[in-house]
């Protein structure tokens, strides 16, 4: 399959399933899921996704720590990351952006428009 590779990282299996189905509404997306930050770092290095959806609160390596690791490695440093988090304050969103994230998708997300939101981010990145 040679679609647009999207890597989704969340420690909750049910949320992984819902995100997988939601992103599946866009047939161009090729989606893989990881259950931890450590697994995401390995998968991102080997699979080179076009974009990563990263949960913020995870046991062990949390979202910001995972992002920092990705940025340290030249093979993954340029992969855009969108954080997925429960409703965050403007200040926290600013902080995530300052860490190097492209944006934030708030949880609970609308499953029928998630694929569209991701697509919009990708288009914005292409234009930039």
């Amino acid at each position: 399959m040679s679609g647009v590779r999207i890597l989704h990282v969340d420690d909750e299996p049910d949320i992984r399933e819902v995100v997988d189905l939601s992103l599946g509404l866009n047939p161009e997306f090729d989606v893989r899921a990881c259950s931890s930050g450590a697994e995401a770092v390995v998968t991102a290095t080997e699979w080179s996704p076009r974009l990563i959806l990263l949960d913020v609160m995870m046991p062990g390596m949390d979202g910001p720590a995972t992002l920092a690791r990705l940025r340290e490695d030249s093979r993954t440093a340029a992969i855009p990351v969108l954080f997925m988090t429960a409703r965050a304050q403007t200040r926290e969103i600013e902080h995530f952006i300052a860490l190097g994230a492209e944006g934030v998708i708030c949880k609970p997300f609308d499953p029928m428009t998630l694929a569209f939101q991701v697509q919009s981010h990708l288009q914005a990145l292409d234009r930039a």
Partner: protein
Amino acid sequence: MAGIAQIVRNASPGHLAADAASMAVDACPNAMVLTDSAGRIVLVNTETERLFGYPREELIGNTIEALLPERLREGHVRARREFTLSPAPRRVGADQNLLGQHRDGREFPIEIGLYPIQRGRNAMVLSVIVDNAEGERTDRLKDEFVSTVSHELRTPLTSIAGSLGLLIGGAAGPLPEPALRLIRIAQNNSQRLVRLINDILDIEKIESGQIVFNFKRLSARALAEQVIDANRGYADGFHVRVRLDEAAAAGEVYADPDRLSQVIVNLLSNAIKFSPPDGEVDVAIKEDRASVRVGIRDRGNGIPKEFRPRIFEKFAQADATDARKKGGTGLGLSIVKQIVTRLGGTVGFADAPGGGTVFFFDLPAWEQVAACKTDTENGMHAARILLCENDPDAALALRESLRPVGFITDFAYSAADAFAQLQNGRYDAIVVDTDALDGGIGLVRDLRAQPATYKIPIVALSAGGGSEQYGQDCARTDGAQTNLTEWMHKPVDADRLAQILDRAILHRGDSRPSILHVDDDRDMLEIVAQTLDSTASIISVDSIESARYALLTHNFDLAILDIGLGAVSGLDLLPDLRRKDAPIPVIIFSALAGNLKDNPQIRANLNKASAASLRDLVSAVHDRLILQSAQVAQETG
């Protein structure tokens, strides 16, 4: 029992009452301390001994400050004197981080009730001291519990709401109508739960001060227009029309746009929900010099009398069944009240003429807020502080705390504002709220890069709570380019801040860079002193002898030299300038400056520039001082 028997044996009725009172004081579960007019302890009870770890004989005769940490004692003496001037019962400590100190050095939060007692000509004070540690611990546990529970609830809700949304959206294929109806019910309720959790979290964050308000100057009308547009779909769902009064004023206020939107959304959605079908909701904005009023009027059934006093309480709903039917959480108005209060305003409601209710809130007009920037008090010997803080209420509170201890406090509500204020006035120290202000710690770095402020004492304030990571990030940059006088956590202990500022200002004297200007032309000395006054402190001398004396008594950052000083040459001073521990950079300011390139004395000195006109001089001074401030930053890094 033996004690009581003894009392009975000795007792006249007067003795009995006095002894019983004394026993009651001793048995009181709170610490009680009686002090005389000089603050000396006259009487303590058993709980005081237990709470502070001192036997009573050690306390009697000592001043009450012995029970406080050393750094708070001076401030307490001042507060005590103020109390003696206007003695009236009052409570202190609840919101002021008042601390007591145990004999073993351990500090703990306390609240004190103060009661003046007049006995003949003796003015005494009874202090009832409550250990607040337990209350603070309970509050912290409650906050942690709410935050954990909310997160734990939100995680499964994300899956539930997501799955239901996919089913309704047809992602799993078409569903029979009865199944679809049931799933819609489940989805509506999961969304209600999400709203409820968000509201609980909001309330909790506002109450605990974790929400940082990003104040900006904005138009209430423009914001109301946006909110009305964004909620048109919601209103359509109830067949209600929302109209903004054509005569609505621009309503310039100073507020956090996100939070003010939240207030308008909550009031608007209430008005829509409780309007009859085909009803109309009117939004009006009025302003005068002091305040802006936003009113939202519905044409509903009005608010029952018995419910009115509780309307802004949490989970208050006039008719719980009705509210549930309309999807309310019972927290909306409580959130409105909390936010409006934090924005420095008030909220209320009234019966609308012709039926329905109008909810309104008043906020201070921008002009009013801007007028507070300059402290109108003018103490002869007071030090002037620039407080960079975007929350006007917090700024006013700090001004009030610093005023009695001799500080005049001007405000800057933004980084740009800070630079403008610094252009217009001279300050002895700067206090920067790094959480609230745009640019945060960046503002401190920018101030350090300016000649006029690179030496000035700067105290940074930071919550270190709410957005912990942000605080840590700021702390990491501390020192390198900021050269902070002190980093203080919020809420600010005003007494401690006053002490820090006092010490820093005393230590620094004039915080501006110091320049020695040597010229035999007195008019020129005057002109240069006036021109550079906003940038530096100038010592002007008209002879080599006076210059040498000044070099012995002062430390200079820069010297400006005229060459022709009557019969002698200003260049004769160069060895003196180099002899000091650190050579003082020199700017030659002379009509002869252009002809000096080949002068061997000048070539021998590295730190030199020359200027022939006043404009050249100002720019040379500026460049030189900027270079120095960069060097200072590097050395401290």
